[in-house]
C-alpha cells in the first residue's frame, strides 16, 4: 500500500481533542524553463504528509534543511497553498476557506518566525508592531489597546516603556520576545514556531524556550515547533515527527522516539547530535550517514531515504514503505523497522 493513502496516526488510547489535522498534504513548487516558462518539473517540498496536532500539546517537527518542515508549517497556516491534501482546524477545512472567512480565522492561528531581525518592521515602534494585529482585527482601540500592548510586553518579559522604542534598539533575544508578543496579541489557539531559536545565542535560547513553555501553560497554547535542534525538541515537545525529503519518516511520543527510534534515519540523526558531556560522548556509537540529502526535485524512487540508508535492500527502491504503527502511537515508514 502507498504511504500517501494511509490514515494519519490516530490515537488509540485516550481521546485527546484534535485541533489541527493534516491529511496527505503535498506542496510542489513548479520549475519553469525556457521562453514560454513551461513547467519542466516540480520541487516536491512536501510530498504527502499526514498527522494530527492535539489541543494543548507541542508537536515537534524535526528534519534537516530541505526536508520540507517549514513549508509544512506554512501550508498549515495557508501561507502557501497546498498542491493536494487537506488541513482542518477544529473541523474547518482550511484549504477550501478563502478570503474574508480565512481572515476571520487568522487570529486563532499565528506564527513565530526564525529571524527576529527580518520579521519586525524596522520603521515601526515596538508598540505599533504589537498593536497591528489588534488594529487589523478590530479587537480594541485607544487606551484599551495601549493597555493590551503594555500587558503583552510584560507577559513576554519586556517592560511597557519599551513600546516607544524601535526594533534595532533590542538584542536578538528581545526581538524574538517582541515577535512572540505580536503572535499572542490576538489570543490564538495555535502557533507555528518556525525555528524560533535558531538565530539566537545559546544562553538566550533557553530564555526564549522557557518563555514559550510558560506562555503555553498560562494561555493554553498549542504549538507546532519546527526545529533542526533535536536536543531542544526533546526538551519542549510532547510528540515528535521526523521529516526527510518531504515525507514523515517517524512519528511518536517524545520519549519513545528518543529512547527507541525505529527508523534508520531517526537513529542516524539522533546519533549525529553531539551530547555536551565528554564521558557520554566517548561511549556513544555514531552512525555516520554517507552522502547528502538528494534533491527534492528528483527524489529517489521507493523509500526516499534508500540512497543513504545503512540497511537498504532492493525492496526499498521498488516500494514506498507503508506508514504503519509499531507499538502504541509509534508510527514509522520503513519496511524493516521492528
Amino acid at each position, binding site marked *: 500500500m502507498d504511504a500517501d493513502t494511509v490514515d494519519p496516526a490516530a490515537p488509540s488510547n485516550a481521546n485527546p481533542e484534535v485541533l489541527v489535522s493534516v491529511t496527505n498534504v503535498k506542496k510542489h513548487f513548479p520549475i519553469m524553463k525556457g521562453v514560454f516558462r513551461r513547467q519542466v518539473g516540480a520541487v516536491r517540498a512536501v510530498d504527502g504528509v499526514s498527522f494530527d496536532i492535539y489541543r494543548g500539546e507541542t508537536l515537534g517537527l524535526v528534519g534537516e534543511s530541505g526536508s520540507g518542515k517549514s513549508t509544512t508549517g506554512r501550508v498549515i497556516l495557508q501561507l502557501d497553498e497546498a498542491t493536494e491534501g487537506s488541513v482542518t482546524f477544529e473541523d474547518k477545512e482550511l484549504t477550501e476557506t478563502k478570503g474574508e472567512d480565512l481572515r476571520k480565522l487568522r487570529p486563532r492561528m499565528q506564527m513565530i518566525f526564525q529571524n527576529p531581525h527580518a520579521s519586525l518592521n524596522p520603521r515601526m515602534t515596538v508598540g505599533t508592531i504589537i498593536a497591528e494585529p489588534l488594529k487589523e482585527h478590530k479587537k480594541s482601540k485607544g487606551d484599551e489597546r495601549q493597555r493590551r500592548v503594555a500587558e503583552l510586553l510584560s507577559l513576554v518579559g519586556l517592560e511597557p516603556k519599551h513600546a516607544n522604542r524601535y526594533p534595532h534598539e533590542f538584542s536578538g533575544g528581545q526581538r524574538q520576545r517582541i515577535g512572540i508578543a505580536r503572535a499572542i496579541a490576538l489570543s490564538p489557539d495555535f502557533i507555528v514556531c518556525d525555528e524560533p531559536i535558531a538565530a539566537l545565542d545559546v544562553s538566550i535560547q533557553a530564555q526564549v524556550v522557557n518563555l514559550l513553555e510558560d506562555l503555553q501553560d498560562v494561555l493554553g497554547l498549542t504549538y507546532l515547533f519546527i526545529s533542526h535542534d533535536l536536543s531542544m525538541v526533546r526538551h519542549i515537545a510532547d510528540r515528535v515527527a521526523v521529516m526527510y525529503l518531504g515525507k514523515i519518516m517517524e512519528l511518536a511520543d517524545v520519549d519513545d522516539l528518543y529512547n527507541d527510534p525505529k527508523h534508520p534515519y531517526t537513529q542516524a540523526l539522533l546519533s549525529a547530535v553531539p551530547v*555536551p558531556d565528554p564521558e557520554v560522548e*566517548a561511549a556513544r556509537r555514531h552512525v555516520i550517514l554517507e552522502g547528502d540529502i538528494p534533491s527534492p526535485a528528483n527524489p529517489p524512487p521507493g523509500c526516499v531515504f534508500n540512497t543513504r540508508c545503512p540497511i537498504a535492500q532492493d525492496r526499498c527502491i521498488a516500494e514506498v514503505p507503508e506508514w504503519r504503527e509499531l507499538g502504541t502511537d509509534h508510527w514509522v515508514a520503513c519496511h524493516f523497522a521492528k
Partner: protein
Amino acid sequence: MSETEKVLQVTDLWTQFNTQDGMVHAVNGVSFDLNKGEFLGIVGESGSGKSVTMMSLLRLIPMPPGEIVGGEAIFEDRDLLTLDIDELKRVRGGKIGFIFQDPMTSPNPVLTIGRQIEESLALHTDTPAKELSSRAAGLLELVGIPDAEQRLKGYPHELSGGMRQRVMIAIALACDPQLLIADEPTTALDVTIQAQIIKIVRDLRDELGTAVIWITHDLGVVAGLVDRVLVMYGGEIVEEALVGELYAKPQHPYTAGLLGSLPRLDQKGQELINIKGQPASLYAKPTSCTFAPRCEYAYDLCRNENPELTKISETHAVACWWDMENDRPRYGR
C-alpha cells in the same frame, strides 16, 4: 602546562575596532598556548571574541577599522603580529591552514576546485608542476570525496555544502600545516553532514598529527572532539581546562550557566537554566568582571575589579573571584 613542545604561544593579545558608534573592544588581553598535535576548542557566543582572536593572529581582520593594540603570538620562534607581511602570507595557508564557517562563500566560485588546491600547493610547497594535479586528487581522496580526478575539473557550485567544506579542508591541508584553525566549520551544515566533517577532521588529526583549534558556539560539538577548551566571554578567556574537567566541574558561573542552559538529547524533563540578561557590550574596556551583570554570584569585588585568568590546578584556570564549589570568595576577599 608541562614542557611539551608549543606550536603557538599567544600573550596578552588586544584587538579593537574603531566604529562609528565608538571603540569596540573585541579582544582584551587574551593569552593561551597550544601544544604540538593538540586539539583545542574555543567556545563562546557571538561577540565573545573567539573568531577575532584567531583572525588577529593571522592579521586577517580589516585594518582599519580593526587594530591590534598589543600582544605577541609566537609561532615557530617568530611573532606573527610583527612578521613582515610577505613572510606572513607564506605562513597563511602554508604552515597554518584555515577553514571558515560558510562553505557556500569561501571557495572561489570562478576557479575550478583543482586550480584552487594546486594554487595552494604551488605557492607553499616545492611540488613539481607535473605532480600538482595528482597531489590535489590525493588530497580530495584524503577528505573522502569520491571521483577525485573528475571533481578537480568541477566548480564549487556543483558541490553541496558538506562537499565544499571537504574541499576547504583539502585546501587547508594541502601544505601539511603545523596548525589548522577551523572557525565554526560545521555551523552552516546539517547534523548528519556535521558528523561526517567531524569524523574527517578527527581522523586527519590522528593520522597527520596536526594541531587543531576548533572555534565554536556549540558545547556539544567540542565535548567529544577536543583535548582542552577555552571559554570566552566579552573578549576575554574566562575559563580554560581539559575537556573532561570543564564539563564535570565548571568553575566559572558563565560556563556552568551555559552548560545548564543546554538541553540534552540523552536527558528528559530537565529544567533549562536561564542566564538572565544579554551578552556583554564591548563598547567599554573591561574594568570589572564583564559577566558580573548577569552573574548570580556577583558581589562588590566583581563590580570593581576584573579578575585575571588564574590557574587553580595544573590543567584548570578560571577568571572569577567567587569559588562556586565552596561557596566563598576564591582569594579570601
